[in-house]
């Protein structure tokens, strides 16, 4: 049965001519793996916008990486018709990114909605990330519809987690809907609840047009596709629009709605959600959070909340094959079109050659960019250990901003400040001790602790960002058997006793291995790194000292003993081909060596030494 029974009803919800009373804008807040995409798929089917034949799993996650990792990076909006008691409604589902690095994008998606479906796995309960987004939604005064998903699972405990959700949002456990995105159970009830509980949008249709950009995506064929929520007035095809943050004007080449394929429309009215195409080629010209208005009759007040994306984590990316440098530059230029937060500049490393220092929103952002570079552009890359930005003040008063350990000044340092985060950790109560141990080891200070239920605890910490970008997530997961979750937000900075530890091979500093660490951990880092390198660097024909140093002071040392014999004694019997092929193989291997002074270091040694499990400073 089609969701909309009559053509007359259907006519009332055409884009550009739907009254706000018939619109419902909502998003789904959920943790990775809690089944958001699968639920969205069921909604697309039930509302008839996607037929069975063209349904593919997780329809809305467009990028391969998203589908493979089961996470959503870029949000989208889909318009779906739904009928309740003879009345037709247009539902706009605004997808939200589900990771800590994209909190700002989430906040813009939430700002485009009047309601949120709080989707929680009925076998796992709420996670820290979801909790953070829930708070964000509550601050935005969104109507919250608590929903437990995966009730078909044998391990589901809907009673228990309904209780937990009720405590969190202050309702009754019975109000919590129960669905299975997999089987479709309860999804129709949920769609009805959205119509009933999410308030219709409110705006002034006669005011100058104002629409908020909540997503901006580069498409090879169409250029930048900008997703907006109209707050006041109306946007129409072919008119000139203006971006309030930059005052740049563009012509609207196309305007429409997604359901979920793009459908051009006669415009978008108050409360409506859709897309704009202006022909710009770079998402930086159409930034998330910006306000779009009509150029001829512009609004003067922006919608507020706009913020430039700030890279918080930096890492050097280098091609393993130096001749791939131009290809890496081209690839970054392409990625940048679709990633307003990506910032990079060329960098040279003695050890790694030519590469780029890249600023990321966070670790996941780093991983995604790196993976896309490797996968979509076929590049083999080495990334240096990620670091945060430090502000260093010298005794003579000069100030230095350090985005790369090699920029850390020599001389008398007065203070070093580092960014800190407010972190929220959710875990079963049995892991409280473990988590405290981990957080204290990372210089965390406990701010508070609350029991969500008898079994689950929320811990709040102030932690240096630099301490959690190495392997904090991995450690947290492995020490709590995967049960703990983490969310954090940047929360200013603090002074800290930080030093730069350099690694020297045969007296030559290897810039790629320098790290800025707390003084109390410098020795441990030095011992760990020199020990690791001793294992990774093959013996040379001379002795190679590996040292860790703070300035001129050596704090740790290992020695690679000289290799005394490399020759194959047996070279007779006429099988010269084999020996020659061995030589050819050695020569191939040599090409992948980097020379530090006279020491030949295999690429694999850099990769292994820089991989996160070795940089934890344990």
């Amino acid at each position, binding site marked *: 049965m089609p969701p909309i029974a009559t053509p007359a009803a259907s006519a009332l919800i055409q884009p550009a001519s739907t009254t706000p009373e018939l619109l419902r804008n909502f998003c789904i807040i959920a943790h990775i793996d809690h089944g958001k995409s699968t639920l969205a798929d069921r909604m697309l089917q039930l509302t008839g916008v996607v037929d069975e034949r063209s349904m593919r799993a997780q329809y809305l996650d467009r990028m391969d990486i998203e589908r493979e990792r089961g996470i959503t990076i870029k949000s989208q909006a889909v318009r779906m018709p739904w009928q309740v008691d003879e009345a037709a409604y247009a539902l706009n589902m605004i997808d939200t990114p589900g990771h800590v690095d994209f909190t700002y994008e989430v906040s813009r998606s939430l700002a485009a909605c009047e309601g949120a479906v709080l989707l929680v796995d009925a076998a796992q309960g709420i996670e820290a990330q979801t909790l953070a987004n829930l708070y964000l939604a509550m601050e935005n005064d969104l109507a919250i519809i608590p929903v437990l998903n995966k009730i078909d699972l044998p391990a589901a405990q809907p009673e228990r987690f309904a209780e937990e959700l009720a405590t969190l949002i202050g309702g009754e456990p019975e109000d919590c809907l129960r669905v299975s995105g997999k089987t479709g159970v309860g999804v129709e009830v949920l769609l009805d609840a959205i119509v009933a509980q999410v308030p219709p949008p409110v705006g002034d249709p006669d005011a100058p047009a104002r629409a908020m950009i909540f997503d901006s995506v580069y498409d090879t064929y169409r250029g930048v596709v900008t997703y907006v929520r109209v707050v006041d007035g109306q946007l129409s095809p072919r008119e000139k629009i203006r971006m309030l943050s930059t005052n740049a004007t563009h012509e609207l080449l196309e305007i429409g709605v997604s359901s979920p394929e793009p459908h051009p429309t006669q415009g978008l009215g108050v409360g409506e959600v859709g897309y704009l195409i202006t022909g710009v080629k770079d998402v930086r010209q159409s930034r998330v959070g910006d306000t779009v208005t009509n150029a001829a009759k512009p609004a003067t007040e922006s919608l507020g909340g706009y913020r430039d994306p700030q890279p918080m984590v930096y890492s050097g990316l280098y091609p393993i094959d130096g001749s791939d440098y131009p290809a890496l530059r081209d690839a970054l230029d392409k990625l940048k079109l679709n990633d307003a937060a990506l910032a990079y500049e060329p960098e040279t490393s003695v050890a790694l050659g030519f590469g780029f220092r890249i600023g990321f929103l966070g670790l996941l952002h780093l991983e995604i960019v790196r993976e896309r570079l490797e996968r979509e552009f076929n590049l083999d890359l080495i990334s240096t250990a990620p670091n945060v930005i430090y502000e260093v003040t010298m005794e003579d008063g000069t100030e230095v901003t350090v985005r790369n350990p090699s920029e850390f000044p020599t001389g008398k340092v007065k203070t070093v400040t580092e960014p800190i985060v407010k972190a929220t950790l959710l875990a079963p109560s049995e892991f409280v001790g473990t988590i405290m141990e981990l957080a204290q080891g990372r210089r965390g200070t406990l701010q508070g602790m609350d029991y969500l239920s008898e079994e689950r605890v929320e811990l709040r910490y102030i932690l240096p960002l630099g301490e959690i970008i190495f392997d904090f997530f991995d450690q947290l997961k492995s020490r709590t058997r995967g049960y703990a979750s983490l969310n954090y937000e940047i929360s200013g900075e603090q002074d800290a006793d930080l030093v730069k530890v350099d690694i020297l091979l045969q007296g030559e500093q290897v810039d790629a291995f320098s790290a800025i660490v707390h003084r109390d951990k410098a020795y441990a880092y030095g011992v760990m790194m020199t020990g690791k390198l001793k294992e990774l660097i093959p013996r040379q*024909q*001379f002795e190679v000292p590996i040292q860790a140093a703070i300035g001129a002071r050596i704090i740790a040392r290992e020695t690679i*003993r000289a*290799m*005394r*014999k*490399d*020759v*194959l*004694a*047996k*070279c*007779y*019997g*006429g*099988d*010269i*081909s084999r*020996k*020659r092929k061995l*030589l*050819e193989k*050695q*020569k191939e291997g*040599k090409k992948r060596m980097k020379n530090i002074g006279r020491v030949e270091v295999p690429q694999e040694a850099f990769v292994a030494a820089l991989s996160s499990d070795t940089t934890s400073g344990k």
Partner: protein
Amino acid sequence: MSARSTLPGSAPLASTLPASVVDGASERDFGVYLHVPFCSVRCGYCDFNTYTSTELGGGASQANYAATAIGEIELAAAAMAEVGLPRRPVSTVFLGGGTPTLLPAADLASLLDAVGQAWGLAGDVEVTTEANPDSVTAADLVRLAGAGFTRVSFGMQSAVPSVLHTLERTHDPRRIPDVVAWARDAGLHVSLDLIYGTPGETLDHWRTSLDAVLGLEPDHVSAYALTVEPGTKMGAQVRRGLLPMPDPDDEATKYEIAAAALAGAGYDWYEISNFARTTADRCRHNLGYWGSQDWWGVGPGAHSHIGGHRWWNVKHPRPYAERIDGGRLPVAESETLTDRQREDERVLLGVRLVDGLDVGADLRGRLPTLVGDGLIEAEPAATGRAVLTLRGRLLADTVVGALTD
């Protein structure tokens, strides 16, 4: 890249050798290697192509093997003539294995005869056979000398019973002085092979073996570091942790001990692992390998080289014999070397020799660093020759790496 081809069995003989092999042939020596793929027991460390069964069937059985190999000699001579190679008398013949002396001395003699008939033997021909100390008698050695053999190389490996046990060598070390005396009495030059670096071998064990060798006053000594090959029984023992992997530092120490002991007793190194009393005592056959001369390798799995063309025979004696019986050369695969590959081989083989390597003008700039690192001798380097120092002999791969691109 080398041009590679698996030769179809039905191809005419001439197609087995490219015309390029003729270039400069008259300036190159021609040797013959004869492989005898039989042993009474297979040693744990050995990765040579050898079989312990006497009855592999047909022309592959031990009894018929000489006749089969003679078949290849005849096919070889025909193929070389067909491609237009000049007839060159054979300057060296080497019987290796396996254990050549498992075959009756008469068979070994008939193999040598066949070589003489196919190509003729040079007046100063060097004819060597490898011999296992426990499968050879005084009478055999006399017979071999009478048939034209000039040299015998005994696989002594060690004078220490526990080391021989680990190597799974079955001979009684007390037999060595006898076989050496018999060989000398028969008028044969004597070479002794030693292996160092066997798991469990101490430095004193190694000195004992060297002393034993020097006491026997052979003409020639080879000292090879034990190489553990993946496919061998010893390889499996090392992988499973039953035996320790030979330690390269220990092997280096033992090489230095050997080099000093041998030099002190008047044996000069002429190749990394080979030592001789006089220039005349050097093994000219092996020098042919290191000098990229021409040789035909007869027998299953044997490798051959003529003028930049290399090939190797099928490994198992049965298909080998079937091919010969069918009148076809038993080639498994071949490659024609590019100029670059020939240069690589010239470097990696030539640098092993006491006379050293002529370094091309383009790479001479690298010699001072090698001298500075103590890898090559300063004086010859001044005129563009790379001659390895003692340290350089142990780090020859580093030197080869520096002298190739």
